[in-house]
């Protein structure tokens, strides 16, 4: 179990460490997939991009292609994901050009993404997906750590906004426990996030 981003990125360099690879895939695959989807790629193309990014990232990490001293991992991975997505978009453009000569020249998607403002939008999408993916991983971790009832109370009350009494009655706990559970889960999530927060390392 890797408890920080740094230790995980280190462990993943070892091809024999399957565990590390699986953790890595679990945490980072969703954001790449979602990012590609939101860049306008189809489901199938996004899966393509995901596979390619994973292969490249894995190889590059192993060969020391990522240097923490030179920047955040988040931005490094973004570079790969963005490039691959653009390549897939270009391939699609070629495909549609070939197939659909009658469509005329509509506004250029790639042009939009490739111009600085569009690129900023892409970076914003990445930032969001990064956060969602980390939160997803944090939830998974915390769910296992705190146990079913605590987590359930948290989801019902804090996420679905079910009134405290209803939650308490359903789970057979004191209403005040619901607040305690909520605080406990939030704290565990924050703690996990802090460990995987992307700070350039000392």
């Amino acid at each position, binding site marked *: 179990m890797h408890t920080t981003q740094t230790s995980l990125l280190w462990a993943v360099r070892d091809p024999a460490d399957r565990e590390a690879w699986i953790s890595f895939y679990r945490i980072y695959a969703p954001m790449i997939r979602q990012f590609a989807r939101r860049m306008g790629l189809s489901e199938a193309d996004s899966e393509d991009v995901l596979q390619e990014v994973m292969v490249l990232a894995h190889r590059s990490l192993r060969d020391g292609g990522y240097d923490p001293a030179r920047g955040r991992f988040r931005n490094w991975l973004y570079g790969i994901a963005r490039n691959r997505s653009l390549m897939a978009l270009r391939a699609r453009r070629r495909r549609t050009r070939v*197939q659909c000569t009658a469509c005329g020249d509509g506004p250029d998607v790639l042009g939009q993404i490739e111009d600085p403002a569009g690129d900023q939008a892409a970076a914003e999408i990445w930032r969001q997906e990064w956060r969602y993916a980390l939160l997803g991983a944090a939830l998974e971790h915390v769910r296992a750590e705190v146990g079913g009832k605590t987590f359930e109370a948290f989801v019902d009350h804090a996420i679905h906004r079910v009134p405290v009494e209803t939650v308490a009655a359903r789970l057979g706990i004191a209403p*005040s426990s619901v607040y*305690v559970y909520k605080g406990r889960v939030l704290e565990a999530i924050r703690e996990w996030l802090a460990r995987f927060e992307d700070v350039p390392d000392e």
Partner: protein
Amino acid sequence: MTPEPDPTPAGSADPPPPEVHPPPGAEQAGVESPEDAALLEDLRTVLLREATTTTRADRQTELPCGSRFGGYIVGRLIGEGGMARVYAARDPLSDKPAALKVLKPEYLASREMLERFWREAGSMARIRHDNVVGILGFPQEGDIRAIAMELLAGRSLRHHLDAARLEGRPMPIARAVTWAIQAARGLAAAHAVGMVHRDVKPSNLLFDDAGTLKVADFGAILLMEGATWLTGVGKQIGTPAYMSPEQCRGERVTPASDVYSLGATLFEMVTGRLPFEVEEASPLAVMLKHISEPAPDPRTWREDLPRWLATLISRCLSKDPQSRYPECGALADALQAGAGGVPAEEESIASSPDLIDTETVRRRLAELSHRAIICWACRCARRVQALNEDPRLERALAIAESAAGDADADGTPESIGRMMRRIQTLRGESLDAAYAAADGLASPAAVEAAKAAAAAASCAAARCIEDAAADAAFAARRAVSALHLAGRSVRAFWAAARKDYRRLREFSAGQTGTVGTPIPPDLLDD
């Protein structure tokens, strides 16, 4: 499992529980800092998104994959909203797919609401129209109630609009008009039996695999009144972007309210934007505009929009219901009359065997049983596997094929559980092998072949939790790339794949034997 000590209320800093139920969304117990609130909001998004792919078996009305409910075999969870979870399901008697919308108990708490709902559901079942998602029944077991509906393979209009927006290419007018007519005809059928949809918007307009538009989710809004405004998984929470002024004011809705909402949808189809957009996505600000601001002229954003259509849209968006088309039948007629002058859309692109439109393949495959999908994917991978010599891929493929064998027509929870346990192994194994192939000095063709096998394996793994058809389509595409690179005939591959597809399609549940049998590699050649 971690033991859970009951926290002691005494001495803790927690405030006492409030006396009355706060309204939904209100600050509860005053403990949420803005920071907490922001974190919670993000977590909400994450969990809602997650609900489409993972199941939380501990939830009361959660139906495990492979279980039976009201005569249906439950499949994967395909969506979750504030009031219900929607599962893909299958009727084992007819072998037809269905969608099961399982209502969450908290939204059926009051007797009055329940009665209102079933009344509405009864009318819904009476609507039979090509442009309305058909209701198959109202299965019930114990306290759990559900609506069984047709399961549509296609996407929603929302998807098409998003795609058009991203591509910056407006929708062809002929297409927008055709779809609007179909939506209007479907809604007219409801209006004819005295029902109002109340929540017409692009995400409720779905397509079947023939590309016909169908109106979904009648009466759903009833249950949402007073509850949270969750419109669906991963979507923003309650944009009243398509709401009529009378709905925004909380007044009585009439068929003309649906006319307004469909008008707003049509506006978006032709211009690529909503009639009222505000800087910050504030529902209140949008509602104010629906109530008081005159609708803009769609021609501002679409110069080539025919005048009659612009006028028609503006009439739909009148503030006064009396000035609109009285109901959607009249709107459909007006659209049809105007459409006479619109040139028909050009025929879609002819497909060449070299260019796989993965989307279409996915849609087609989705008609097959799971077992057949897995089998098809494995065969595609098999056909190119000779190009790759990694034994791990061979193993992954073998597991995938055996999973196809297990995926028999009525998988029991046990057999599905077994399969789920394999998922981790299988995915890891095949991905590993694919990467290893990519890293080694193997030919690019072998790498593609490896990816095809990996995809076939994950297709088997994805049986319960994700879209197996997408994985299968991906495998096919990889196989084609591999053949390309190896200089083999793609045409022969594709012909064989088509033949497989037809055979698997005809293959009925209950027969066993031929499905999982590997295909000899020499089938590759003409």
